[in-house]
């Protein structure tokens, strides 16, 4: 990350006039219709809204899984609309961690191997990636289940593995699409605590899509979407990361 484009006064994510249209048959559907949004580094932002409001579309666009119809998405120093495929693949591999509602663990691989996968893709050496994966499993409280296959784990455990996996490549940005949707509220709360902890201690930025207002209540900001537009933004906590968690160079830049 270059310092000039992501100095602390610049937001990590800058979305401008973003639209995404689909053709369903001959009917044009506007999933996003002119969205402007800034997200600062280290913030926990919840995207809420009824189904079809465009919250998942926005998440996928920011994650580089989808391309905008028009408008701009700046994440750090990359504009996703004009980036080529190679840049997008690299962006997903190095800067993004995804967490899905249905976990999406690789069924034939053990918990630790699942956590290792992003590191395999990033060509980290075998010994180093095993060490880091075990460390991450430890941090989500699953060190004892490292050798288990996903079908031997409970839903909550699977999502914990998925959280560990999303953090493996030390991303800038965590994107979670209904991460508690398949879990009971108590297990879901455990996952939310893990995510909050990641935001606080690792200073990652978290974008979380949910329609559960209780879940959204844990965020720093809540962005309400409806019919592809931002309806309103609720500020629950003023500024995110307390200064002691700032890395040293950023600390200097903030002066």
């Amino acid at each position: 990350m270059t310092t000039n484009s992501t100095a602390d006064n610049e937001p990590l994510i800058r979305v401008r006039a973003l639209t995404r249209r689909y053709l369903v048959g001959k009917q044009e559907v506007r999933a996003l219709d002119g969205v402007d949004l800034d997200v600062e580094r280290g913030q926990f932002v919840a995207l809420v809204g009824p189904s079809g409001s465009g919250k998942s579309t926005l998440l996928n666009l920011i994650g580089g899984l989808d391309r905008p119809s028009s408008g701009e998405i700046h994440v750090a120093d990359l504009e996703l609309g004009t980036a080529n495929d190679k840049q997008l693949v690299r962006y997903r591999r190095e800067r993004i961690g995804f967490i899905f509602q249905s976990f999406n663990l690789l069924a034939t691989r053990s918990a630790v191997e699942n956590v290792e996968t992003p590191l395999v893709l990033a060509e980290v050496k075998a010994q180093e990636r095993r060490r880091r994966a075990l460390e991450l499993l430890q941090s989500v409280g699953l060190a004892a289940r490292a050798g288990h296959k996903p079908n031997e784990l409970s839903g909550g455990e699977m999502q914990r593995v998925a959280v560990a996996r999303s953090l493996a490549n030390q991303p800038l940005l965590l994107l979670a699409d209904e991460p508690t949707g398949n879990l009971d509220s108590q297990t879901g709360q455990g996952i939310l605590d893990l995510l909050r902890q990641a935001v606080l201690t690792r200073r990652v930025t978290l974008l979380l899509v949910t329609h559960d207002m209780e879940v959204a209540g844990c965020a720093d900001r809540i962005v309400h979407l409806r019919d592809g537009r931002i309806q309103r933004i609720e500020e629950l906590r003023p500024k995110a990361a307390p200064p002691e968690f700032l890395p040293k160079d950023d600390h200097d830049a903030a002066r």
Partner: protein
Amino acid sequence: MTLRDKTSTAWSNLGRRKVRTVLTSVGVIVGIMTIVTMVSLANGVRLQVKKQFEEIGLDRVTVRPAGEGGFGGGFNPFDFGGRTKIITPADVQRWQSWPQVEQASPEVDLPGDAATGLRFKGKSRPVRVAGSTSAFRRGPFSQPPTALAGTVELPQQRGVLILSRGALKGLDVPQRQYSALLGQTAEIVLAAPRGQKQSYRLKIIGISSDGAPSVQISALDRLAMKSWWFNDPNLLKTDGYDSVVLRAADVSGARVLVSRIRKEKFEVQSIDAILKVADRIFSVITIMLSMVGGLALLVACIGIVNTMIMSIYERTREIGTLKAMGASRADIRLMFMLEAGFIGLIGGVAGVFLGWLLGRGLNYAALWFAERRHLPLPDNLFVVTPALVLQSLVFAALIGILAGLYPANRAARLDPLAALRHE
């Protein structure tokens, strides 16, 4: 993603559907097995033929008169006016003086329908009259006869003959007494269709191990017989020799001779040239036999394509997840191509082994059959060379990778979002 990680991922992905993987590779197994068996048979036969030819001698060149219709046409007694260029004794003498020629032996063939008999110790029996160098006409698997007594190398000298073991059958001469026959006189009786008979008295100088009833007589004696048969004392002047065998100092000398004599408009043939033609024929046969295996491989290809499409369909979500985590198209493509390549390779390994085994079995059966029929067969008709093994394995893997090309491309092009939503 490193190549090593892709390879191990592809391998472990095959392991999750073991039965399907093995069933898919059966086509490759059958194809490679067929090819290995066929090619090893061609290899073996070719090696044997080559060995036989080399025993006869690659250093020999046979010259025939021009205008006879080429080699292998056989001699037609009603067509002897057809020679446009005859081999005269002067030609033979000239060739003999060339530096490449070690020895020039003229040959005369008796007409095919001339009845020849051997009269010896009061008994008569039909025999074939041959020259010393009738080696070309031997079967590919027969060994050259050896001397049981005296010599089997016929000198260019009148009045002598070499008997075969087969010609002595029924005369009650045990083998240890063969040497006692040397120096005795035997009679060759030539019978013309017009009813006349002419006999020639010749001295026995050797007994050969050939089982067929035959006698070897020098070219000059045969020329005399042929002159009598056609009632033409000037036969040598009008028709010349039927052939001349030139023995060169070495193979390269033989090659020089072939081109030199061909310029003189004679028909020339050498073992070396025959071997080259034989090699080409064997290559054609090998390719044709391999096509059978190729057909099996084509079917196997379709099987692999089908299996890969199925397994990619099953893993659509997984591919979406990998893409979300930053796997590139090239990563996905190569991973699935390697997976298909492994299916081919598994089939290749099993196919090579089974092909070798089948070759052993067929060889065993062939030897058993040949022994019952008293046919001379070499020990090993199926030769699997390391090169054949290596080529088969590489070929099998390539077949797999080729078959994986289309499915892997489909997987690589999957839209990550659509793949993640796939149920």
